């Protein structure tokens, strides 16, 4: 799927493969890759978090206000710490409400989304935070975001495959009752997932905000949909338990390059209303192709066993 897209764009506009563009694309995808890692953990335990877009907005506001001189002026290090703490705290709250109060995560995080949206607007008060300090801007310069992204992916991969948490999370997602019976700490694992989601949303925001010169209240809007689409497209089962990190990240690659590729295909100024439909169509094609391949595979194996 990704291959088809990439070949098409190669034929139409080889400029897409300029090294600077590929590097740009990498930096562009990193925040989403980081959040997708978090969302994969949450979806694996059969939950969902729709508050991450608004959380990114609040974290960006905290980061911007804390770092700039004419606002809280706490210095860049402190600002980053505060931003990450905010994200993590919201994650903990989400996790506790879901796991301890046994509330459906869609309701908890939907409410949280509204709360955070309001909080972000209160913090920024309709104004922009501009003149971000240079040492904050440096976070997004060069390869820093890419290294952070790789570190997050490596860490999550290690956790999911090497550490017992990996199979425990899957177990909780695929069969919660059974998991509870064998004595797995169901609640703690769910809280852990949400906490990491909040933490990673904050990390993604911290590497993404300094790319821009202005923090405003629209930051992060719609990110939750983008990230959830990536996860589902990547083959992570929304009913929990099944799916790989690699698949989800492939989802990010498809969704992210798609947006960029649509610009490079030069569809002209008339095509603008078509793009959503094209994007959705490509996703459907990908899903169908995926299914056909899976069916073929299972047929082959049955034939072999017979």
């Amino acid at each position, binding site marked *: 799927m990704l291959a088809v897209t990439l070949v098409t764009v190669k034929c139409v*506009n080889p*400029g*897409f493969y*300029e090294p*600077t*563009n590929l590097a*740009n694309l990498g930096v*562009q995808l990193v925040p989403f890759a980081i959040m997708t890692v978090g969302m994969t953990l949450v979806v694996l335990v059969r939950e969902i978090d729709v508050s991450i877009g608004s959380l990114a907005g609040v974290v960006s506001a905290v980061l911007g206000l804390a770092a700039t001189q004419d606002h809280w002026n706490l210095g860049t290090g402190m600002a980053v710490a505060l931003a990450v703490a905010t994200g993590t705290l919201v994650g903990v709250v989400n996790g506790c409400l879901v796991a301890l109060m046994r509330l459906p995560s869609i309701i908890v995080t939907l409410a949280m989304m509204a709360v955070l949206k309001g909080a972000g607007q209160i913090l920024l008060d*309709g104004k*922009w935070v*501009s*003149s971000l300090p240079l040492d904050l801007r440096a976070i997004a310069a060069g390869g820093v975001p890419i290294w952070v992204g790789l570190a997050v992916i490596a860490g999550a991969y290690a956790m999911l495959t090497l550490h017992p948490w990996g199979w425990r999370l899957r177990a909780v997602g695929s069969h919660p009752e059974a998991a509870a019976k064998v004595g797995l700490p169901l609640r703690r694992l769910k809280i852990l997932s949400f906490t990491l989601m909040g933490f990673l949303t904050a990390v993604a925001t911290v590497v*993404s905000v300094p*790319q*821009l*010169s*202005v923090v*405003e209240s*629209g*930051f*992060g*809007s*719609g990110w939750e949909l983008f990230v959830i689409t990536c996860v589902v497209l990547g083959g992570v089962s929304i009913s929990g338990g099944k799916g790989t990190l690699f698949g989800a990240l492939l989802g990010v690659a498809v969704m992210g390059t798609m*947006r*960029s590729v649509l*610009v*490079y295909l*030069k*569809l*002209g*100024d008339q095509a*603008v*209303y078509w793009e959503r439909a094209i994007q959705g169509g490509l996703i459907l094609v990908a899903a169908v192709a995926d299914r056909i391949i899976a069916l073929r595979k299972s047929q082959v194996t049955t034939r072999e066993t017979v």
Partner: protein
Amino acid sequence: MSRALLLASLMLLTWACTSPPSADKKEKSGKTVICLLPKKKGVPYFTSCSVGAEAASKDLGDVELRYDGPTDGSAEKAAEMIEKWTAKGVDVIAVSCNDPGALASAMRAARAKGVKVVTWDADADADTREFFVNQATPEQIGFGLVDTMAKDLGDASGEVAIVTASLTAANQNEWIKHMKIRMAKYPNLRLVAVKPSNEDQKLAFDTTRDLMGAYPNLRGVFAISSVAFPGAAEAIKQAGKSGKVLVTGLATPNDMKAFVKDGTVTSVLLWKTEDLGYLTVEVGRALAKGELKAGATEFESRRLGKVKIAGDNVLLGDPMVFTKDNIDQFDF
């Protein structure tokens, strides 16, 4: 439960304290009393408008201006102020309407009591006011953007792209329509793409970067939402293309000052806010004196000369262009 009751009564009490009983008698000063209501008081944009309004009332001499509005931008408080002014029997109320639905009944009640009501900056339902002092029509904005780009490019040729708000934003779509009409005047100016940014600065940033990659000959970007403008400018700056790829749009001068000074942005468009305040006061006074009536097609302004009236819209005129030569004179 009792705590909720206590809270409610407390809130009621504070509300009662903050809204003093209104004096129900007409004030007599001989001057035309004009109340200018901004969407939100204390915002630099509206403060700048009020400076112009103050100048108008000084120039005219027979006007008493009251500039007041909710500091939190709430429509309820705005409606309360309109009611208060109506009760005091002022002559004119000029409203920058932050919520047509919420203000309609207060505005209608004011008109029923003989107060002349006009809107400025942001319009309300047609039957709640007599005139709207319109700072910029979609045509003026669309034409202004294209003309500015053509002028900044020097030879008015090359590939240009639009980064808009969302594809459903009515204002922007209306501007784009007029931009396309105006582009016919510059045959060498070619619009290659229109991309949404969904009020997401990051998306505007990423999209502008992709546009520059996909169209290596791109010479200009119209970033026509307040969020898209800094996002697009930042992408151009980081790509080292400041001055090579031009970007223009609508914003307040303060928001884009840094980009104008470092050469990334050549021109920023916005209407003359002080003139908007000035004209609003003049229109209000003329209405109260009976010098301006429905159906008029022109209005004589002291500062602006003859201004056009289209239907019930008094038109401020072409937008202002801020460049590095004049941007320091403005602080809003």
